[in-house]
């Protein structure tokens, strides 16, 4: 036991005396949260559009003022001829064009039918889709206002309710994703170099010629990082609650418990990498290679359900995928342990597997 504590103390010294490690440990999560929270969102604000209005009547004026009032659009300019539209798209960052034909109001009132053309820049299909939806919604809105005046016999009004995230904030989706990503990456990278560092510096050679227990060494390497990662998690949570108005609807204790589980999973993975590599560089390289699959398969950037079946199976092997589900359930839906026991069990199984393999891979001799 004394031996073990001495190992743990030594590991703490290593961490606290390496300013680069500390910077990475605490700098990365803060940068990530701020980046994903503010800069990188899939909400669409202030898209530049052009309007070509041949009618210039009451109806079109009202619709245009509605569009102007919307936070999503910013009218760049009004065109005189539709021939200028393509030019406008090519010229600049115009995302959408709306064209009202002549006699728009007349057609609407007398023929009960009027047409409006919406042209979107579909080089980014998601944005184009979202923008055309927004524009259509605004026009439909106007139509409903009209219908209030002349009563119509049949009338279906869809009553929409956005559950768990009524304001459709991107942060609600991103924060659990960033938590999963940051904890995964930081823990894997930190521990990936820890054992191999001792191999490189030669201290492992001295350690091997001593009655130490490999299991204790490996566990003691993970403990400082577990401790620091929990602090890290607290920082992320405080930041996202205060800056990004994230809800924490479920039990904070459960959230920390589950996070500790993911941290241990990631640490075990890092230790495994460290045990099978021979240089810090290759350990770092392998853990860097893990960034992309972690980002892709966690599910917060691209929905997993839309991926081809083989990729969905691969995603199951990514621990952060399960953690992402857990965090969303606890933080946003406010669910208890009974809803996430399956994911917890999977993470637990992964941890045991990784730990056992990394201890078995530990070499008791050189080479």
């Amino acid at each position, binding site marked *: 036991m004394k031996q073990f504590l001495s*190992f743990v103390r*030594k590991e703490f010294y290593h961490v606290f005396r390496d300013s680069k490690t500390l910077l990475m440990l605490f700098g990365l999560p803060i940068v990530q949260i701020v980046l994903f929270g503010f800069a990188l969102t899939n909400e669409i604000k202030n898209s530049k559009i052009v309007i070509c209005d041949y009618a210039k009547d009451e109806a079109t004026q009202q619709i245009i003022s509605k569009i102007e009032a919307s936070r999503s659009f910013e009218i760049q300019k009004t065109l005189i001829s539709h021939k200028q539209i393509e030019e406008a798209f090519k010229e600049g960052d115009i995302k959408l064009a709306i064209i009202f034909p002549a006699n728009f109001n007349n057609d609407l009132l007398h023929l009960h039918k009027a047409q409006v053309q919406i042209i979107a820049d579909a080089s980014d299909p998601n944005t184009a889709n979202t923008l055309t939806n927004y524009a259509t919604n605004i026009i439909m809105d106007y139509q409903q206002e009209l219908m209030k005046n002349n009563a119509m016999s049949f009338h279906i009004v869809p009553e929409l309710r956005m559950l768990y995230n009524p304001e459709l904030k991107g942060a609600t989706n991103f924060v659990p994703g960033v938590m999963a990503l940051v904890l995964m990456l930081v823990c894997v990278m930190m521990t990936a170099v820890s054992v191999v560092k001792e191999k490189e510096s*030669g201290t492992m050679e001295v350690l091997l010629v001593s009655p130490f227990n490999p299991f204790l060494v490996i566990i003691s390497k993970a403990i400082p990082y577990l401790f620091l990662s929990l602090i890290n998690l607290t920082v992320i949570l405080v930041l996202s609650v205060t800056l990004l108005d994230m809800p924490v609807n479920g039990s904070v204790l459960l959230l920390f418990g589950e996070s500790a589980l993911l941290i241990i999973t990631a640490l075990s993975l890092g230790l495994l990498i460290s045990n099978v590599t021979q240089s810090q560089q290759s350990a770092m390289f392998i853990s860097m290679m893990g960034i992309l699959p972690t980002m892709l398969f966690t599910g917060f950037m691209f929905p997993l359900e839309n991926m081809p079946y083989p990729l969905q199976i691969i995603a199951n092997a990514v621990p952060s995928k399960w953690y992402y589900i857990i965090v969303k359930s606890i933080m946003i839906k406010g669910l208890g342990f009974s809803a996430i026991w399956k994911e917890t069990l999977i993470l637990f199984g992964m941890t045991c597997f990784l730990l056992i393999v990394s201890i078995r891979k530990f070499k008791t001799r*050189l080479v």
Partner: protein
Amino acid sequence: MTDVVLNNIVKTYNKGEVKAVNDVSFEVNKGELFGLIGADGAGKTSIFRILTTLLLPDSGTACVNGFDVVKDYKAIRKNVGYMPGKFSLYQDLSVEENLNFFATVFNTTIAENYDLVRDIYVQLEPFKNRRAGKLSGGMKQKLALCCALIHRPTVLFLDEPTTGVDVVSRKEFWEMLKGLKQQSITILVSTPYMDEATLCERIALIQNGSIMSIETPDNIIKQFPDTLFAVRANDMGRLLNDLRNNNQIKSCFSFGDFHHITFQNNNEHSRNELIQSLQESNFQDIEMKHITPSIEDCFINLMN
């Protein structure tokens, strides 16, 4: 009583391409200060690593304290002290923290074996809060020795402990080893410096993985087959060439201020003849004297 036994140890690298240790056998007695002398790449480190259970030999057997290096490696690791050739302590830990850590790893405390390391540690004490990475080369070696000794090992393996250390520190280091001998610790030390060989009780001269001779330093010198002379003149470079081209000379090597030579037929006549021929070749200040060979002379002689 023997503490270390090697029987026909062979170790190859790169799937047998490089033969690092070639059929090496020797024994080290209890309480002996045994030196492994050889140039870089002679196989010294491989032998040390096999004995400290870090490498598996390809063939042959070896025992330390009566334990087999392959089967009973755990028992050996408890009882030996090992100081690798490269400084291998935690550079970001202070002197005291390093020593404390290694004491705990071996389930002991500094206080328990302080008498063993006291003489060395008092020199380190003024720097005990300094990080190990910031110590001078000599101080690093002293700390490494302390850490290797802190659990009172029965056998101490020191792989090139004085390489890259200044002359004064080297001398101090060997004084320390003599002190440790009083504590009846068996010491196996390797060095590329021939002058350190005479400080050992017995030495093994090793070259290209094979042992050339195992003897006390005195006996190795006694076994030198020829009479050795040292020659000096004003133009040493030309002198070396001339001597090597002289068919009366059996061997000739440059040794600092002198060239060491042996004759094919050592007698008064051939010596006079040499001096005469050197004078004829316009050498000035010719000096020739009879000397006792050093270990290095013996080593070079054995190599050829």
